[in-house]
């Protein structure tokens, strides 16, 4: 590191506080999103998985249930990836 860099670094320390703030904003927004979902969502997901597994062998991770609230209308989004046919 040159002498010049030494002075430049001292003037502008990399702020760990701003990293902390950025990370917090992301995780907190994510967790608030989950919080606003109704309690029954995990059970709903489980029952959907149970029904589908009666007919097709699927992976738990391949089922996504999400509830979106837009103004006065809620959208239940169901996304199931079926296994490839052999």
């Amino acid at each position, binding site marked *: 590191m040159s002498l010049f860099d030494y002075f430049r670094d001292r003037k502008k320390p990399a*702020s*760990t*506080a701003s990293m*902390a*703030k950025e990370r*917090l*904003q992301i995780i*907190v927004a994510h*967790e*608030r999103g989950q919080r606003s979902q109704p309690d029954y969502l995990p059970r709903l997901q489980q029952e959907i998985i149970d029904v589908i597994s009666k007919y097709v062998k699927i992976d738990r991770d391949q089922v996504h249930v999400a509830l979106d609230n837009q103004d006065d209308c809620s959208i239940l989004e169901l996304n199931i990836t079926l296994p490839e046919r052999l």
Partner: protein
Amino acid sequence: MAKIIVVTSGKGGVGKTTTSAAIGTGLALRGFKTVIVDFDVGLRNLDLIMGCERRVVYDFVNLINGDSNLNQTLIKDKRSDNLYILPASQTRDKDALTQEGVEKVLEELKQTFDYIVCDSPAGIEKGAHLAMYFADEAVVVTNPEVSSVRDSDRMLGLLSSKSRRAESGEKIKEHLLLTRYNPARVENGEMLSVSDVEDILSIPLLGVIPESQAVLKASNQGVPVIMDEQSDAGQAYGDAVDRLLGEEKPHRFLEAQKKSLLQRLFGGR
């Protein structure tokens, strides 16, 4: 009408008990009849911070179970005639607290006290839930540090969904109290600033308590830090109590103390 204030945080070690002791004492010194209730069953510590650990005879669980009455159980503070402490049980576990039992005791306390300060245990389990369930106002104690801020946000979510007020469509009045704040580190970009934390949690700021040697000194002696009126932390808690009572006061101790050249040379504080 009695007000129930819960001091909560989610995360442990951020200063809940220190804050409960300070706020409770501050309210009592301002003339309000106040009781501080320790909800940390199994790990009671409020008695030590308040300096009345050797006067505990009966506790919260005894009171709930009817083994003792209110007069026998409450400990009167030696410093203020308006201040009482209700100690937690040290030998029982959390399940000894029931919602009906807590409600009954709080209703009884409401008859005689202006303020009931509930010192919540860490975590989000039964003790913490019951400490906040009946609250009218909440002081959310937060350190300028990632895990504490996240836990506080989680706690805010619980306050607005799993409390009696929330269940009846009302709102608990929320206050942010930022503790262990180090302005010098904030200026160096090493610590989240007051406005950073306010931005993330977006609840009104009750006060900022600077990281201070006075806090440890006070707890060593069993004296609430608010009694140390010479100290920065004591004054900051005093301001916070005034704001809790509706006074508007500017926030202090947000800037780092500049050291003079002589202080730097000789390492003085």
